[in-house]
């Protein structure tokens, strides 16, 4: 057992810290720090700077821009990025479709999509969930029917985050409605979002934001060459996608940063002298420490690239703490938490005005990426054998 990072890893961390805090424009990092919404341009600019330095897709195969890092180094990379308020690379590109194409795609698909995906020249959207297929994803009904060299896609996807920026969408579509098991009739199809018949409609959320969308497919013709891997094997690729990325799943770095900011506000308000607030913050810090140590412990486990079932703990507790910190900010804001619609003439600080929308927005974290109830099902079934 050893406490400190090795000299090599400590150097690695220092170099990343230096890069993140000096090379990403302060304006972008300040927007993240203040929990403002980033523009598409800011996200693209940040990811391109990272990509040019080999820091956008370290988890990919080396020949496609990945880094031969240890799990611990990936963890350090992710946490340092979060602590420095650098927006993480677009997860749909780097954690989701990129690894699927790199693992199951054809050589042509790899060459066509991977460099552009890493550099955010293509903005990917996710087309998995449907109005009647949420946690029960395999019940999806969007169909793709082969017609010569094309598929004709009909149906509807939903909860497509940042779909308004999307250039392409990776989808799960039903190609064999007669398959004996519903998981067996699903394929993984890449669709250009400018194709006729595809429409994106925003969904307004409870925080007033419009970050998610519905995507409608009406006789959308998709070249058959955009099928990833084999027809009717899409469920396998989707499972790979959903289980593939455990680095950063706990969001420890971002939550730490947000808690540090909340603590700063508490200090300014004199609330750190209030034992109930000091105790609550101490408790959150301790829970976050336990989570970070667990992430480090799991990062050290070798699982031969397979998802560690313990990542369910990280997702579950990670979102619990993300939400708890947003809740703390609302409580610290007090009456100022009402003023979400106030503009720059407001007497109230920006963080306090944003506190409630952020709190409401973060209710999503325990729902997306496999709801926390799905994670409990995995823990009970896969780990405990119940």
């Amino acid at each position, binding site marked *: *057992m*050893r*406490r*400190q*990072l090795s000299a090599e890893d400590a150097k690695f961390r220092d170099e990343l810290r230096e890069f993140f805090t000096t090379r990403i424009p302060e304006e972008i990092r300040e927007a993240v720090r203040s929990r403002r919404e980033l523009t598409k341009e800011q996200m693209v600019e940040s990811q391109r700077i990272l990509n040019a330095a080999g820091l956008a897709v370290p988890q990919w195969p080396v020949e496609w821009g990945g880094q031969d890092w240890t799990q*611990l180094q990936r963890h350090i990379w992710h946490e340092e990025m979060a*602590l420095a308020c650098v927006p993480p690379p677009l997860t749909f590109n780097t954690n989701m479709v990129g690894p699927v194409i790199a693992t199951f795609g054809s050589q042509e698909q790899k060459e066509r999509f991977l460099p552009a995906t890493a550099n955010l020249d293509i903005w990917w959207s996710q087309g998995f969930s449907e109005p009647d297929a949420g946690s029960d994803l395999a019940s999806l009904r969007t169909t793709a029917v082969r017609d010569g060299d094309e598929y004709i896609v009909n149906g509807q996807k939903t909860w497509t985050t940042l779909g308004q920026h999307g250039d392409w969408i990776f989808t799960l579509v039903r190609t064999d409605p007669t398959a004996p098991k519903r998981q067996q009739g699903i394929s993984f199809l890449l669709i250009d979002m400018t194709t006729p018949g595809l429409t994106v409609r925003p969904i307004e959320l409870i925080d007033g934001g419009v970050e998610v969308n519905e995507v409608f497919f009406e006789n959308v013709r998709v070249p058959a060459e955009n099928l990833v891997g084999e027809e009717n094997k899409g469920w396998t690729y989707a499972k790979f996608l959903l289980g593939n990325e455990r680095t950063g799943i706990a969001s420890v770095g971002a939550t*730490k*940063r947000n*808690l*540090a900011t909340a*603590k700063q506000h508490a*200090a300014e308000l004199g609330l*750190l002298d209030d*034992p109930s607030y*000091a*105790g609550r*913050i*101490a*408790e959150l*810090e*301790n*829970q*976050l*420490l*336990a*989570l*970070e*140590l*667990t992430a*480090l*412990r799991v990062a*050290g486990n070798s699982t031969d690239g397979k998802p560690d079932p*313990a990542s369910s*703990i990280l997702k*579950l*507790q990670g979102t619990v703490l993300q939400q708890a910190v947003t809740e703390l900010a609302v409580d610290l804001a007090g009456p100022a938490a009402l003023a979400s619609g106030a503009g720059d003439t407001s007497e109230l600080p920006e963080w306090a005005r944003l506190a409630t929308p952020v709190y409401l927005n973060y209710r999503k974290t325990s729902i997306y990426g496999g709801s926390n*109830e799905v*994670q*409990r*099902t995995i*823990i*009970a*079934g896969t*780990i*405990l*054998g*119940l």
Partner: protein
Amino acid sequence: MDFTIDAEQEALKGAVRGLLARAYPSSETRREVVTTEPGFGEDTWGKLAEMGLLGLPFAEADGGTGAGPVEVSLVAEELGRVLAPEPFVEAVVLAGGLIASAADDQQRASLLEPLAAGESVPAVAWLEPGRRWETRAEGVTATWANEGWTLTGVKEPVLWGARADLLVVSAATDVGTGLFLVTPEATGLTRDGYTTHDGLRAARVEFRATPATPLGDVSRDQTALLDAAVDAARVAYAHEALGAMSTALDTTVGYLKTRKQFGVTLNTFQALTFRAADMYVSLELARSTITWATIVLDAAAEGQDVDVPTAVAQAALQVSRAGRHIGQDAIQLHGGIGMTAEYSVGHYTSRLTAIEHLIGDGAFHRARLAARVSDHEVIDPIG
């Protein structure tokens, strides 16, 4: 950052597990042992000594094996798994640790050698009636008169205080807190032993002008020595709790798979399996912080500049939260059988509750951490 143990440590863990599996093949065996005086297995104690475990943290010159906090934690965790009542933490880690750090050269080997050999079971009398987990002594006063020290006052609860053949007593002196040794035959010493709710033994110990020998240099305040020994014991207890929580969860999971109601096994009910999943999350989060506290203790032993008291408070708070969660739900998920003395799981809850009150409860450690909350921007365990 490395949480893994090496091959030698793995072997030690396996050997301890084997020994304890033979000593406590069932919870019934444990019940027999704790209902018979002195409340632990003298034979088992001897076997622990033969294996070198009772001298684990002491220098070889003092009759020990010179191992560190990691080895101590492995033993404690195995004891916790089977709720072995042997006073390893009380005698070896707390009393032995205090003797090792406070004693002068002549005292040290003469006290630690018999402890390591299993011949002596020392106990530390530091908790006082009407107070919580403060290490500064108030209730027992040390007085210098006629070329000797005497102690007056009451300590309670003193774990294994009636069985111990040597008491290490914290007492108020003119300069703060001093540490003193008292032998069972000393005049003016009264020991009223009793059983604690988890089956172990404690005592009310009264001193009436009882002659005592200084442990080390009592002309200085020795509170910091007691703090350090108590903190090391807290980490060992935390591992004992970890072992106990782990068994409590395993037992519960096993029960859910086999117990039938409404014609089906209980694991058919999601309301129950989700609670078991949450217990697992608590256990693994606690395991991380507890193991980390041991790593910090180990780093301190190697002379690194680390903050041991904070790491101990962090682990202790986690023990409190996880121990209550797992202990309470282990009983609830069993239903009525979990309430019975005949069945094992309730004893685990009782022991977890006892451990929390030995190391300081959640409110106590949370307040310790809250007092330092302004000292840092973020907590960085690998910095």
